[in-house]
């Protein structure tokens, strides 16, 4: 509860700072809208030529896309600061400042910034889901919405855990941004059904960097084109496991930082 209140304090300070740059704020939100709209148009164009993608209809693919976009929005809005752990905190020595505060360093780090692009992302995700869901050939009600919300939350947690894990390398190598961004790029594969990829890639996206659980497997809970229905229900467990591993690794990084300095 204390940390919720504290987050609100950080949040309002950040919001005030952001209002100093109102134009950046708008440009950020608009550019995300633009980027996302073009990539959805791309999906649309593909489906104008073919009717199904290995058994997946246009709206089913859109559904997968929407889950990924919404999950990503959670990560983007709250945890965006992980990207600059190396460049803005460790390299500059500002991480020392964080360690002098009587609050957990990870909390401090993520509270230090909010990213309005996340709102653009969230709006897109919700709109896409709103278009896709009525066209799915299944009844949709309150229970389905609840389950979907839980799965999307898990999707967000997986995005967060993966990024936290790779950001932590900064404690040893000063700035792990290149590793983080390379890994993050893998996540764009999961805008589409995993079944269209070869075995190797599917394996990586399921077992190594479990981005598959940010969109495809959760979607399979509702639209099952290949027998992943049960796997989909594992999403929350995968999310919790990922967060635990990432957090444990983060703690390990902190300890190492405390003994090497930067």
């Amino acid at each position: 509860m204390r940390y919720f209140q504290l987050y609100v304090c950080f949040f309002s300070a950040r919001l005030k700072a952001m209002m100093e740059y109102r134009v950046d704020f708008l440009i950020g939100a608009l550019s995300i809208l633009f980027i996302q709209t073009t990539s959805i148009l791309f999906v649309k164009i593909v489906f104008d030529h073919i009717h199904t993608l290995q058994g997946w209809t246009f709206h089913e693919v859109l559904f997968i896309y929407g889950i990924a976009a919404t999950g990503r929005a959670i990560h983007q809005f709250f945890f965006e600061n992980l990207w600059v752990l190396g460049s803005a905190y460790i390299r500059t020595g500002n991480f020392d400042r964080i360690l002098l505060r009587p609050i957990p360093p990870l909390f401090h780090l993520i509270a230090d910034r909010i990213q309005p692009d996340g709102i653009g992302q969230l709006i897109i995700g919700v709109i896409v889901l709103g278009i896709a869901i009525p066209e799915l050939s299944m009844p949709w009600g309150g229970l389905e919405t609840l389950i979907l919300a839980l799965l999307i939350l898990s999707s967000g947690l997986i995005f967060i855990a993966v990024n936290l894990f790779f950001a932590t390398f900064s404690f040893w190598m000063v700035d792990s941004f290149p590793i983080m961004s390379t890994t993050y790029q893998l996540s764009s594969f999961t805008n589409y059904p995993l079944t269209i990829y070869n075995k190797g890639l599917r394996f990586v996206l399921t077992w190594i960097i479990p981005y598959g659980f940010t969109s495809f497997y959760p979607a399979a809970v509702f639209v099952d084109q290949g027998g992943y229905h049960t796997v989909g229900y594992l999403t929350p467990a995968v999310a919790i496991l990922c967060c635990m591993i990432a957090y444990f690794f983060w703690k390990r990084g902190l300890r190492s930082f405390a003994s090497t300095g930067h």
Partner: protein
Amino acid sequence: MIEVRGLSKHYRIAKRKQGLLGAIQGLFIRKYTSKKAVDDISFTIASGEVVGYIGSNGAGKSTTIKMLSGILTPTSGDVLVNGIVPYRERQKNAKKIGAVFGQRTQLMWDLAPRESYDLLKHIYQIPEAIYQKNLHEMTEKLQLHSLLDIPVRQLSLGQKMRCEFVAAFLHDPAVVYLDEPTIGLDVAAKSRIRSFIKQMNEEKGTTIILTTHDMQDIEELCRRIIIIDNGQILYDGDLHAVKNSFLHEHVISFELDEEKEEILIPGELEGLVTYIPEEGNSNKLTLSFHPETISAAQVIAAVLHHYRVRDVSIAEPKIESIVQEIYERGA
């Protein structure tokens, strides 16, 4: 209050070989050299003391302060601050300490200082009444009223540093670490900050550890100094004792007309003056001496006799010269 016993910090520095092959090799096999940044130091600081922690660049001052404040884990030895082992209970320790690291800020760049203070109030859970009282008193002492609502990025360095001090003292810390807090400031800002430190120490009994290159900071604030060099303590004791023997030292700096491979002290000054090496300057000859041993006129005459000199300046005694002097005496 602060107890340090046998404290050491050895950094591991990865040895890199030259060239691409070396870089690739470095990915698999790493050789490390060890740097003893702090090497078996011990001291005790009582509550309410103001201690000057001095030494030349790279002596190990910042490393010590990082260990005292819980940022760094020592390689060996014990630290106890307010009865807490800082690196073990970092957050608990953080509640009771404050810090100013020169040229690094804890204020939010795009916002007015007041916003940062308000956030600190929540971070340190300062009761509203105490917060208001402290903020009022401290802004008064540092004359900050007119700056409280201006975005930090628009403030001058001196104004920023004054705001920084409020941030460090706002939560009534028992100990405050100041690591070169006056670096780069003008005389007016320095003196305002000094009197603030003095007042906080006298009124609130705040224990203060100060590292600085400015002898005037030390003279005005500290009764006790600890001199560290190469990670080891050279001197720990009364400032006055050192001052009488060293601070009345004179330092004269000669700018020579030509660059020299090696600058030698003129023969007739041998044993009477101390040569102070200057970084990067091969045409500077800096000497320190006691006015009782030899007069400034004699020193200048002797140097002019041996070298063509472009400029002469009488400098304030530097930390480096004191360290050097203590070294030579000890040897």
